[in-house]
């Protein structure tokens, strides 16, 4: 059983997807338990995988018993075992939180929603697990198509905008994926193989070839589009902000992070560091692009009035963190980049879960603006508390995990002498302070409730206590939120373990 984990982790949610579709014809009540079961098995397998990687090292799994390079190989090492846990964990925790929202916003579409949800997760898990460059493309499309549908489902007044932004996403996403496919096609022409390990063996003898150069450039362009690296980020903010909160809290934490994983996988394990960092000289340029992405993303975030829009631009800035950290090309930067994949996924999950709760409780229809969050500290202290922890983590306050990945990124920047990148990171931290304290302030001062009674309250020197009626979200939404908040701290304290036991081993021999 356990030797088949690399296949089970993808097949379980795939089968769950079909079963949900079937059962939704009979009774919609079965959809949720099946989805939980599928994702639970995937999460369990991901833990099993990392345990066996710890015990036995790299796992090579031949799908259907066909030997590579003809057959498809799933190859689990420290790097993707780590990312698999992140993906399956986020999907598993999140599904409990979105149940209420999905049932209220999409009562007619529950079957399709859960089915798309698990298929999307299966796609991302497959992208992460596969050791075959073409198989990666197929799974990329599975994740992308289900992602478009999830966003297009929309909710309430936003459904028109959601459809429009999903269309935009389809265009950009398809172009990105096609670029990737084209690059892989070039590689296949030049080498005759699609297996990543095989490619890494063959490619060094072909480094001078223009075909390889073109393949690399096209591949990377496609991936940059898919990961929404500034200035190719245009599809992301609307797509995430206008989708149903139920879909956003799954897609936002995972999509860009998995794409960054793919970039790391392709650069290190297909083209090899000798090519990516030394043979072609784009390190410095990429770090500058990333620094610009960080600054631009932060500034765009600053100009938003809507909470979810602001969060989506923070994602754009965070993509810059990870891309920049990777292209620093040293151990510290790469460690920061990989660490941030997990940390940022949990932070984004936490923020989007909180945003989902706000949407559920105060504004089921339409966008939540920052000013709508007045006196949230007294109305929803638990949700707001979790939101504060996540915000502090994004700002980079220890001991929350966001501090530690930022630490490694800045350290890498200093060691590589890329001071502009460090300056961009610090700048983004400072902007994040403003972004989040603007929200905390609005939630603390209670702009919506206390305005009309401000005069009388002011004279007597104290405010009325009747504002402080606690009106929290249902436990099914709060528990996942608190679990992800706790993970922010756990990941922070676990930094040394993750870095020395997982990431150093994942990139050993590469730098």
């Amino acid at each position, binding site marked *: 059983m356990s030797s088949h984990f690399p296949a089970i982790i993808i097949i379980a949610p795939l089968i769950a997807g079909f079963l949900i579709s079937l059962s939704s014809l009979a009774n919609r009540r079965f959809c949720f338990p099946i989805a939980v079961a599928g994702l639970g098995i995937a999460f369990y397998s991901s833990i099993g995988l990392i345990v066996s990687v710890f015990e036995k090292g790299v796992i090579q799994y031949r799908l259907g018993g066909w030997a590579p390079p003809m057959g498809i190989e799933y190859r689990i090492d420290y790097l993707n075992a780590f990312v698999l846990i992140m993906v399956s964990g986020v999907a598993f925790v999140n599904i409990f939180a979105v149940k209420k929202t999905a049932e209220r916003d999409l009562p007619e579409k529950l079957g399709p929603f859960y089915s798309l949800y698990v298929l999307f997760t299966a796609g991302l898990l497959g992208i992460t697990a596969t050791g075959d460059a073409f198989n990666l493309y197929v799974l990329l499309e599975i994740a992308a198509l289900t992602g478009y549908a999830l966003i297009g489902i929309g909710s309430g007044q936003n459904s028109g905008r959601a459809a429009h932004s999903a269309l935009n996403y389809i265009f950009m996403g398809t172009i990105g994926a096609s670029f990737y496919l084209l690059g892989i096609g070039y590689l296949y022409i030049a080498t005759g193989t699609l297996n990543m390990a095989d490619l890494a063996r063959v490619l060094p003898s072909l480094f001078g070839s223009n075909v390889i150069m073109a393949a690399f450039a096209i591949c990377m362009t496609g991936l940059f589009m898919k990961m929404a690296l500034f200035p190719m980020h245009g599809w992301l903010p609307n797509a995430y902000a206008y989708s149903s909160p139920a879909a956003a809290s799954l897609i936002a934490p995972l999509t860009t992070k998995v794409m960054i994983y793919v970039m790391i996988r392709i650069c290190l394990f297909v083209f090899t560091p000798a090519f990516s960092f030394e043979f072609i000289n784009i390190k410095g340029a990429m770090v500058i692009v990333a620094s610009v992405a960080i600054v631009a993303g932060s500034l765009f975030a600053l100009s938003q009035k809507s909470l979810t829009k602001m969060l989506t631009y923070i994602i754009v800035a965070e993509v810059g963190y990870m891309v920049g950290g990777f292209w620093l090309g040293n151990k510290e930067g790469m460690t920061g980049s990989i660490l941030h994949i997990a940390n940022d996924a949990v932070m984004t999950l936490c923020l989007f879960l909180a945003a989902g709760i706000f949407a559920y409780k105060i504004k089921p229809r339409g966008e939540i603006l920052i000013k709508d969050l007045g006196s949230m500290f007294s109305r929803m202290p638990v949700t707001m508390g979790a939101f504060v922890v996540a915000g502090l983590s994004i700002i980079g306050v220890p*001991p929350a995990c966001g501090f530690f990945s930022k630490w490694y990124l800045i350290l890498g920047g200093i060691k590589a002498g890329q001071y502009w990148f460090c300056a961009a990171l*610090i700048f983004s931290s400072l902007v994040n*302070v403003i972004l989040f*304290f603007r929200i905390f*302030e609005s939630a603390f001062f209670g702009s919506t409730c206390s305005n009309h009674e401000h005069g009388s309250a002011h004279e007597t*020197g*104290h*405010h009325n206590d009747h504002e402080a009626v606690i009106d929290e979200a249902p436990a099914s939404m709060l528990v996942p939120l608190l679990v992800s908040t706790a993970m922010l701290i756990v990941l922070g304290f676990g930094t040394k373990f993750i870095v020395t036991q997982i990431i150093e081993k994942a990139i050993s021999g590469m730098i």
Partner: protein
Amino acid sequence: MNEIYSIQPFLGVLISASAVLFIITAKRPNIREGWPFLFAIINFAVIASMLPAILAGNEITFTVARVLPGVAIAFRVDAMGLLFGLVSSSLWIVTSAYSIGYMRTLSEHAQTRYYCFFALSLSAAAGVAFAGNLFTMYLFYEMLSFATYPLVTHHQDDEAKKSGRKYLGYIVGTSVGLVLPAMIFIYAGTGTLDFAPGGILSWAGFKPLLICGLVLMFVFGFAKAGIMPFHSWLPAAMVAPTPVSALLHAVAVVKVGAFCIFRTLTHIFGVDLLGSTGLDFLGLHSINMGTVVAVIASFTILTASLIALSQDGLKRRLAFSTIGQLSYIILGAALLSPKGITGGLLHIGMHAFGKITLFFCAGAIFVTTGVKNISDMTGIGRRMPWTMGAFFVGSLSVIGLPPCGGFISKWFLLVGTLESGQLAFMAVLLSSSLLNAAYFLPIVYRAFFCTEEESKFEKKIDEAPSWCLGPLLFTALVSIALFIYPHIFLTLAQMAAKTITGGG
């Protein structure tokens, strides 16, 4: 010197933080306000229990978690940290009593929140005092920044909002913008952040210019110390309730800033490195980094004292006085001499008792009469003689006159300037004393000596509630007692100075 591995320092941090759970769940106000009092006493007892071991020349260490290679959340209590820990934890007891009187008399809203964040702030201050490395110190420094925000903005009106923005803008802006990169720079160069009495940078091989830059990043980055031009959050923070201004903005928060600068100068850079690293100033002659920091501190001392002269709001005048006095502590470190360092450390304790008395008096006056401005306080001594008597004692201590504790720390600072042969700073200290006298003594004089017509108060004794009056009389008495019995603080400061300067 022995190292003792003990959980005591961590308890000193945890006990105050755990008070929050009890305060939140308390059903009745009496119980809710009893908890901080009880926890403050337990907390003080735990911290004081470390005193014998430290006085015997040991250090107490405790590691909570190793979070990064070479960096842990770890505590190391030495004489210097214990001195600060004793000051803030003992004054928390007094302030807990004072808070009850102040907050109840004014029937302030959201008192539960107030007591919770007060306890968290004290926990963070203890964390800074006992931190064993720069990372732990930074962690608690940031925790303190965020824990005090709801206290500063307690009134939740527009002025509080504005002040809150200024407060966070300055404090978090500088710590993230300056301290964080400087800290990572040091880690990149040395691979460690642990404090060591001689500093850790001497073997990193940094260029002098980089060292100078780092020193300045720390001196300005720990903006809680109120070094100009990053001082203006402190007068703004005076919108907070007076107990907050008293304990946090005269003792815990601001001295955390000064303590952090003191700690990094002495235990990261080290006095030898600061003394030997210099800038060629305009090509004339080389000035070492100690002197550069001392000049920055002197500028703040004199400017803040001059601004204080012109302030009519009593709390604002006290705030500018605090800004000036904090730089005494920095100046003490920057003199790089044993006596100067002793004086700087002593000043953490001596100034705390004097200044908290003054703030308690300001609060007592506000609670009893509603008066905030000095110009409206003529003749107030007739109505509140005990309060104004205590105010006089506090003023003497801050000015640095006998028979108050402030005299002793100032004495050591003056000797320190002689010892390091930098007489210019002696002139700074003396003129600052004159300015202090000029902005404090007229308040006391006009409170007691005025004609019937001038007086704005009837000659009828009507003092503040005893929960307010008791604490301020107590701290005034302690200020005097510290002149006669400075031994504990003095011994700790001298021990710290001895280790820092390498036994000299």
